């Protein structure tokens, strides 16, 4: 391999690690990013002459640090306070146990980018930019947001990290659970935006989901906590259905109607193993429980083989662990599968009366679907229309319209 190809490969594999360590050493995101680019630029000119260094990662970190000191020196001509900073970096010779601390630095970077003091949108943008190395343009197009908006979110997030003193640290044991929640939330949000886009006409955006899976795997390797395994399992078991989730025209296909031979058995096997691991720990939470539900679905070769008793039981536990109207809605649908549509309708009507599902089109669609199965065709029709009025997403709208049209066929046949 030529040296320049080697450097390219090294950039893909190592640039995030080098960046994470440079942020710790320099205490500043922007300075560290510039230093990273400088270090690779230096490698491109020096390595072909001097040959590959023994430890390229250590070389890059060290070069980045010196380049940052140079940059501060140049700027110090205009701002004297920077000279002090440059001097401090120069004297800090601390570079011990590089290989050990580098993995800690990656974890620090994740926790800092996902700190709950940042808004959810800022956490997502910053994580994709700094941890995953997506460009601002790529993030903007994935979330159908103007590039300047994303750029501004990232700039503001970095400013808040600096001004509010958000630390570059892995949280202590007492804070870990809460901080980890915030990280898992960001990863799951990225995954879901790829799997169920909130707007736009494409039914899925695979690139975002695979980025979330990569992040989940990275986090599990750095921090093998049960809920991290649970989230990764949930994403894998969901991802396994991707090929079956849409038909040839790109329209969504319900779980019951999916061709289960298209499900990815490799992803399912990996997901199931992780679920078991998480549940065995007895320290699992909502992600592990949702993954367990997905695993029960994955075990059924045909929809009628589904163990609804077990699924309702898992929803009961989930509802206690993380009560929410949406979980209660899913539980109601599972009860309808176990005990018949009327039982589910009674539960959904109770939930709708509580008001927590106002404006949520899936609640209207689920109710309409149970009405259809119970033979209340007119009520089903009204329900699908209510759902359509609340739904913005192209592929989901097309799906609801198809359901509505199918009702006419059904009522004509009666």
């Amino acid at each position, binding site marked *: 391999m030529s040296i320049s190809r080697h450097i390219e490969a090294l950039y893909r594999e190592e640039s995030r690690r080098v960046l994470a360590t440079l942020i710790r050493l320099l205490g500043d995101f922007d300075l560290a990013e510039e230093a990273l680019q400088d270090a690779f630029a230096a490698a491109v000119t020096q390595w072909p002459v001097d040959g590959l260094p023994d430890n390229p990662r250590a070389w890059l970190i060290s070069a980045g640090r010196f380049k940052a000191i140079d940059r501060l020196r140049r700027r110090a001509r205009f701002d*004297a306070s920077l000279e002090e900073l440059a001097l401090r970096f120069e004297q800090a010779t601390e570079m011990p146990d590089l290989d050990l601390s580098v993995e800690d630095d990656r974890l620090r970077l994740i926790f800092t980018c996902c*700190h709950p*003091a940042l808004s959810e949108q800022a956490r997502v943008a910053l994580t994709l930019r700094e941890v995953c190395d997506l460009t601002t343009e790529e993030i903007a197009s994935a979330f159908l947001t103007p590039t300047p908006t994303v750029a501004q979110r990232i700039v503001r997030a970095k400013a808040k990290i600096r*001004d*509010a*003193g*958000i*630390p570059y*640290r892995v*949280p*202590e044991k*007492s*804070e870990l659970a809460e901080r980890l929640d915030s990280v898992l939330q960001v990863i799951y949000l990225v995954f879901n935006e790829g799997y169920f886009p909130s707007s736009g006409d494409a039914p899925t955006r695979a690139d975002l989901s695979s980025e979330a899976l990569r992040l989940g795997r990275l986090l599990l390797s750095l921090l093998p906590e049960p809920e991290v395994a649970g989230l990764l399992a949930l994403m894998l078991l969901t991802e396994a259905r991707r090929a079956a989730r849409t038909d040839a025209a790109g329209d969504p296909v319900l779980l019951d109607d999916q061709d289960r031979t298209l499900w990815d058995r490799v992803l399912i096997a990996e997901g199931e193993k992780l679920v078991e691991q998480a549940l065995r720990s007895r320290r699992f939470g909502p992600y592990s429980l949702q993954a367990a539900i997905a695993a029960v679905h994955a075990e059924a070769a045909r929809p009628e083989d589904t163990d609804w008793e077990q699924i309702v039981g898992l929803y009961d536990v989930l509802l206690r662990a993380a009560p929410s109207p949406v979980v209660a809605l899913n539980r109601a649908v599972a009860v309808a599968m176990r005990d018949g549509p009327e039982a589910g309708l009674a539960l959904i009507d109770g939930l709708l009366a509580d008001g927590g599902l106002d404006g949520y089109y899936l609640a209207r669609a689920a109710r309409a679907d149970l009405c259809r199965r119970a033979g209340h065709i007119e009520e089903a029709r009204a329900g699908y229309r209510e759902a359509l009025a609340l739904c913005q997403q192209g592929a989901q709208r097309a799906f609801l319209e198809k359901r509505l049209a199918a009702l006419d066929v059904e009522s004509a046949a009666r």
Partner: protein
Amino acid sequence: MKYLCLVYAEEASLHSLPDSPEDDECQAYADSLAESGHMLGGEPLEPVRSAVTVRVRDGKTSVTDGPFAETKEQLTGFYLVDARDLNEAIRIAENIPPARVGSIEVRPVRELQVNGEG
């Protein structure tokens, strides 16, 4: 870093909820922060009905009754603390007794950019 922890709560119910802190508990927490070296200063405040708002416009001072903004929760006290970073400041804030009935806004203290030195 220095952080100002602003204690907001609904004055009307601050002292009457089941979880409302007693003065003794607040004093004890302030003492413990002083002992651990985190406390730079802090006081509870009299209710907003005792407040005046002062403005100077075109060199003229105007004094009006009440707080600057009418909000559901009022500023009822503050802690100025020294913390290693935001995580430590959040840990200090979550243990401020009225956090159970109100909310604590944690704000980093800004250093004034004063010229003419060194």
